[in-house]
């Protein structure tokens, strides 16, 4: 081979480097430090039944149907749970089951303690190996929202017990909480939590009874302008807050032109933002933008920032719904001194402060 001697030697050198790195033991030490369990040499027979694909029903497991219709073999005693979605993590903490949470995703940030748990990666593409390395008895996934069906199938194929929730409405969320709590052996806490949350919602309903729904534009993304469809979770949450999207669409995330919004003239504009103040959209920002400033809602300052929890089927949702209801129907709550009410009308901004979203109850 006379052709590219420099290239050849480069390849040899690279091969040597790769081989040397790979056979070094440094990487093993890294993983041990990360907290995932180091390899133990157990023979197959002694393994928990959760890893055996297609195992027949033994006294240690039960066959359940998850919320997407899949049949899953779940152990009676669940001690190690891996959560693949932030709302599930939040629910687990709300149920007081954080001891059983063996791992969650990089994005589980509510409550803050969840960030310290071992991570398995992103929600869309978690590392299957990391999940397996945590030896979970049960993996909880939010199919059709945070997680992909492919991930669920891949884990099932490996013999891991995966239960997929599918909360499309607020009511569905209560069911999911109930299912999760019963799977994890905390049925009582689950019932209690659901009852509490439902009571708050019912109280809200009473307050808002006979009030017309406020027409809002819920902004998912500003540029291009994307809003919500009628079958989304947010749409349901809005209804509980006494509001309704001005856009009726079958698609989940319809894109619309700003002219259309001007034509529809929503009464309020709702943005979601993180908990911190700085990323909320200010009315003053909007007043300086073309087309936006032609909206009546912007003129009178009817711009609301609501927490991201509004899109999360977890207990914190109820706080967000209540917040939003207060913002949209101030006259339904006379005399109530919520922290946001102290702001003068000129820049109405609802930002959730940290304490309001603590899920540890």
């Amino acid at each position, binding site marked *: 081979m006379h052709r590219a001697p420099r290239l050849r030697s480069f390849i040899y050198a690279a091969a040597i480097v790769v081989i040397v790195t*790979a056979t070094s033991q440094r990487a093993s030490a890294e993983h041990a430090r990360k907290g995932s369990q*180091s390899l133990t040499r157990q023979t197959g*027979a002694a393994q928990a039944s959760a890893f055996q694909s297609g195992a027949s029903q033994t006294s240690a497991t039960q066959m359940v149907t998850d919320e997407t219709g899949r049949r899953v073999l779940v152990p009676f005693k669940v001690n190690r749970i891996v959560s693949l979605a932030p709302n599930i993590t939040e629910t687990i903490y709300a149920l007081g089951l954080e001891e059983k949470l063996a791992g969650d995703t990089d994005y589980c940030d509510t409550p803050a303690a969840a960030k310290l748990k071992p991570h398995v990666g*992103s929600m869309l593409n978690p590392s299957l190996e990391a999940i397996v390395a945590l030896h979970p008895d049960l993996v909880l996934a939010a199919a059709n929202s945070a997680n992909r069906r492919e991930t669920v199938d891949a884990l099932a194929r490996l013999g891991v017990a995966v239960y997929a929730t599918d909360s499309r409405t607020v009511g569905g969320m209560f069911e999911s909480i109930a299912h999760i709590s019963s799977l994890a052996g905390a049925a009582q806490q689950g019932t209690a939590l659901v009852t509490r949350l439902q009571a708050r919602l019912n109280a809200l309903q009473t307050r808002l009874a006979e009030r017309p729904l406020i027409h809002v534009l819920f902004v998912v993304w500003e540029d291009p302008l994307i809003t919500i469809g009628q079958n989304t979770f947010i749409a349901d949450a809005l209804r509980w807050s006494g509001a309704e999207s001005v856009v009726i669409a079958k698609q989940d995330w319809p894109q619309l032109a700003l002219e259309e919004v001007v034509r529809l003239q929503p009464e309020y504009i709702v943005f979601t933002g993180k908990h911190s103040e700085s990323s909320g959209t200010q009315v003053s920002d909007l007043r300086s933008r073309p087309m936006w400033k032609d909206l009546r809602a912007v003129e009178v300052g009817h711009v609301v920032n609501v927490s991201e929890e509004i899109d999360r089927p977890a207990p914190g949702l109820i706080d967000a719904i209540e917040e939003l209801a207060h913002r949209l129907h101030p006259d339904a709550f006379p005399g109530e001194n919520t922290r946001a009410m102290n702001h003068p009308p000129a820049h109405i901004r609802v930002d959730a402060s940290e304490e309001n979203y603590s899920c540890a109850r």
Partner: protein
Amino acid sequence: MRPLTPRRIAGICGVLFALLFVVVVISLRMGTYPISVSEIVTTLFRGALGRRDEIPSEFWLVVFGLRLPRIALGILVGAALSVAGAGFQALLRNPLADPYVLGVSSGAALGAILSLTFAPHVPGVIQLAAFIGAAATIASVYFLGRRGGQLDSATLLLAGIVAASFLSAMIMFLMTTLSGHELRGMAFWLMGDLSTPPPTPNVLEWLLFLFGVFAVAAGMIYATTSDLNLILTGEEEARHLGVNVRRVKLVVYISASVLTGLAVSVSGSIGYVGLLVPHVMRMIFGTDYRLLIPTSAIGGAIAIVLADTLARTVVAPTELPVGAMTALAGAPVFIYLMRRRVR
């Protein structure tokens, strides 16, 4: 004057296979779940001997359930794309040709999107639909790319480019009307993803089927390599020397398109490999297609397995899509190649 002999080809391929084996072992070793090289070798050994019960079930799970199928798929896809790329470069008389230039991957993506819209989550449907999309594109571009009854390189290239852009536009249209969750699955698919689970419960059967298709298509291309060498010096000249140019072009077109369709159906579109691996192999081993096709196949396999290993480990536990890795690595390699063209 040292003409190419089968023995020399076997020798070079032997070296490359050894390199591939090393890369596979390294890839098996890397990952969130810590395993050492000796443990891998023992596991493989025991697995091969059928002594399954002696292997800790996590090993089995991680090595045979997760890593090995992925690596095997990576080998297949890398080999298929590289051979297809080499074939198209000869067919289209264009060193910039890659397997996707004739729109095959766009057709496959369109098939995949349609299957996600109408029959999501049925195992195997997305691969089948993608392959049908690829096949339909292959046929249409063929009929558009003919001139005077046979495939004409320039016309074919134009037809392919038109098909690719038309199909991409349709895909974009459909993606704006898809709902959220399917869309995300599609985005992953488009970026190139080796972790798609096989549609049949038995991974081995699936892999053997795929390799079978690969072997047939690659074999058909290999049978034309003497002809291709001549065609590369000029079609007219090749005709005068007795090459059935029309038939060779048709065989290469169909086989290379089948290989591309195969790769894209199982793993989405992974870019740069089909374009660059043949060039790198040319630089090292020369332009004789009798050697280029096998070395490209093995070289492509090595490239994808490496890229996938990096994609899995670089920001663990998050996994990057393989296509992102090949793009990141591919661009500098491309620049290097451009500056080092052997004159």
